[in-house]
């Protein structure tokens, strides 16, 4: 990790549980799973998100050419800034670092649709422009007037971790005073088809996503943005103490036994075997995909929930999965949470959060 330990100053969440981190947190507290839809073609349980509230921040006229994926990202970005209660007068000192596992799939396939349906001469320029992955950072920078450094990352299961690592570098090198980071995915029928073809089963049992032997994948969509700063202020949630990436064999040594674990497990058996090994004889471990769904940037949802838990000094029980039946308060423990993401190939990412030092 860089010597700078970025502070999480504001968090914006758009998920199937609703708009805002509070909506997601309340659902976790309720121990009830959110409503899902059942995809007609694949039969998969699917978690959809709604970004209609974006009209609170942007005029409908400005949204005419903005697709659902970008709307989720824009809403999460606005919410994160609002949550931080910061004015950010020096917009050129605020960086924008966005990421996704697969980019805007709706626009990617939408452009292909325009070519297939109307011929190569009539491909939609708008859909092509919006299918470029950095439409994410571009539209957010335009909407919020942020003119610091800007990158977009597409690194599948490593997106969230590498995004935080890059943000730490920007802060440490003084390239920016604040960095708005964000990641998420959109559900698309092609993704549903592939998921089904990969052998995902449709089960409504309570052990999703922690039946590590099963492929019980529930496609989810949503977006999380966070405002990071070099130093915390009074409202800061947490700080990122460390980021570690390495092979499965070494990951166990990097996890502190006293820390709570938040797993970005998403019901994929190829990853599940690694979580199984890493959590064996280790507690407490929590996973919350049952509240936001399976997506390769799910770790940013876990980081958001870990930040909230640190602020609340309390981790609610894992009602939805019946994996971690007891709640946890931090009185007898350090308020440190390791957010863990295991990839199918056995590479592991750990983002360690602890309280902000004011």
């Amino acid at each position: 990790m860089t010597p700078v330990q970025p502070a999480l100053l504001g968090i914006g969440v758009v998920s199937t549980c609703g708009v805002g981190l509070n909506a997601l947190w309340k659902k976790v507290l309720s121990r009830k799973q959110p409503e899902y839809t059942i995809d007609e073609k694949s039969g998969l349980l699917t978690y959809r998100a709604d970004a209609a509230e974006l009209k609170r921040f942007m005029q409908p006229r400005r949204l005419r050419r903005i697709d659902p994926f970008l709307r989720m990202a824009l809403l999460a970005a606005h919410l994160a800034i609002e949550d931080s209660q910061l004015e950010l007068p020096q917009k050129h000192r605020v960086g924008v670092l966005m990421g996704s596992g697969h980019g805007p799939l709706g626009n990617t396939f939408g452009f292909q649709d325009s070519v297939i349906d109307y011929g190569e001469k009539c491909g939609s320029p708008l859909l092509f422009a919006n299918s470029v992955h950095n439409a994410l950072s571009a539209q957010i920078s335009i909407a919020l007037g942020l003119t610091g450094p800007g990158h977009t990352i597409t690194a599948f299961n490593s997106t969230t971790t590498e995004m935080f690592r890059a943000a730490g570098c920007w802060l440490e090198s003084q390239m920016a005073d604040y960095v708005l980071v964000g990641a998420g995915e959109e559900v698309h029928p092609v993704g549903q088809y592939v998921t089904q073809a990969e052998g995902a089963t449709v089960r409504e049992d309570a052990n999703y996503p922690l039946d590590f032997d099963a492929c019980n994948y529930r496609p989810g969509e949503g977006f999380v943005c966070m405002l990071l700063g070099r130093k915390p202020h009074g409202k800061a949630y947490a700080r990122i103490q460390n980021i570690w990436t390495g092979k499965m064999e070494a990951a166990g040594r990097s996890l502190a036994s006293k820390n709570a674990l938040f797993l970005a497990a998403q019901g994929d058996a190829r990853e599940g075997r690694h979580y199984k090994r890493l959590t064996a004889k280790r507690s407490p471990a929590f996973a919350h995909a049952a509240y936001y769904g399976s997506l390769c940037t799910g770790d940013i949802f876990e980081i958001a929930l870990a930040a909230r838990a640190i602020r609340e000094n309390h981790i609610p029980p894992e009602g939805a999965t019946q994996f971690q039946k007891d709640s946890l308060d931090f009185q007898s423990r350090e308020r440190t949470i390791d957010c863990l993401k295991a990839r199918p190939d056995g590479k592991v990412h750990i983002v360690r959060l602890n309280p902000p030092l004011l």
Partner: protein
Amino acid sequence: MTDVQVMVTGMGCICGAGENLPQIMENLYHVQRFPAPPTVFETELETPRPVFMVPDCLEPARKRVRRRWNQKELQAGRDPNRTNLMALTAAEEAREQAGWKLEDLQRKRVGVALGTTVGCTLNHGPFYRAWRKYQNPDIGPVRRYMQNNPADWLADCWQLEGPCITIANACSSGADAIGLAKLWLESDLCDIAIAGGADELSNITYVGFSALQITAPSPCKPFDKNRTGLNLGEGAGILVLEKAEEATARGQAALGKLAGFGSHLDAYHPTAPHPKGLGLRRALDQSLSQAGITRQAIGFCNAHGTSTPENDKAEGRTLADCFGEDFPVTSTKSFTGHTLGAAGGIEAVFTVQALRDQKLTATAGFQEADPECIIRPPRQTLPLSARYGISNSLAFGGSNAVLLFQKTEQGDQP
């Protein structure tokens, strides 16, 4: 500010101008270019617009890959796409020049940062067309896409452990990847970094850029008064970056120093650059600040220079305003085409090589100066007397990146 010095110890390149760096520079210095109608994909467009394709030379890289993974692993998706074959070809050239054996690199903390656009997008036309027709297509192409994220693929191919990132920042991706690798080294996240960009030609981008009406029907003419648009290209440009102390310890000469990196957003328009180059100016000043020098020290610029009316006007004016009308500027896209996510990597390689050779390549196709661009690139290769050079990258969405390189004396250790 950090006291870590980031040195370039190896460079590799493959593009429409040639299959390795010496061959490419030879062509650039002799103003030889090879635009042609596309043959690496099919198109329905009646008047195909020229592109710059990589020569047919990727088979050796494919053979090396087949030694790395077994047949089952290759079939499961490790079989590389064209983008990654080009990335590997350029990376091998860079690694050899840097004097690193693979087994030695594997014992170091080596980061991999690559920029791309096509290389990380699920754009498999036949698969998608079959899916649309309810034909339940085999998901092999999707598995291959999932296993071919460029930075991840290269790191896995070489079995490297360190930070690993694929930046999809449109046309500035390669430059941003190199800039981020510099920050990794300065933050001690790794000791060595493999950084640059790679991108292949595809029917999707070809049709997409046609839809945007910014491709030219003839070979491009960056900064020319009569320019009509860009030509697409493909390729890869890779640098081996390492801390000066690492290079010194093994007696490796540095090819140049990466002295500064700037990145700023325009926050202006989804596809057009800011007309006054707001983000570009800031990125430029940021790179100068990192290098601890002033504008007067910069000897030349390898411009983004796409040959589109809007880019060249905004960039040319900004450069003239910052450095003066007679500032040496060229656009090597006139030899490579616009290689999108690879462009920043390829042009970084050319910038370091220009400092080493003290030669500024011509801008092929440039004939008549455009008063709106102000700057006038050379028609023939020119001698340079430059200690510092910059490489600009401007992207869709208003991303601007500037890489600032410093000349090191030939054969000097850092």
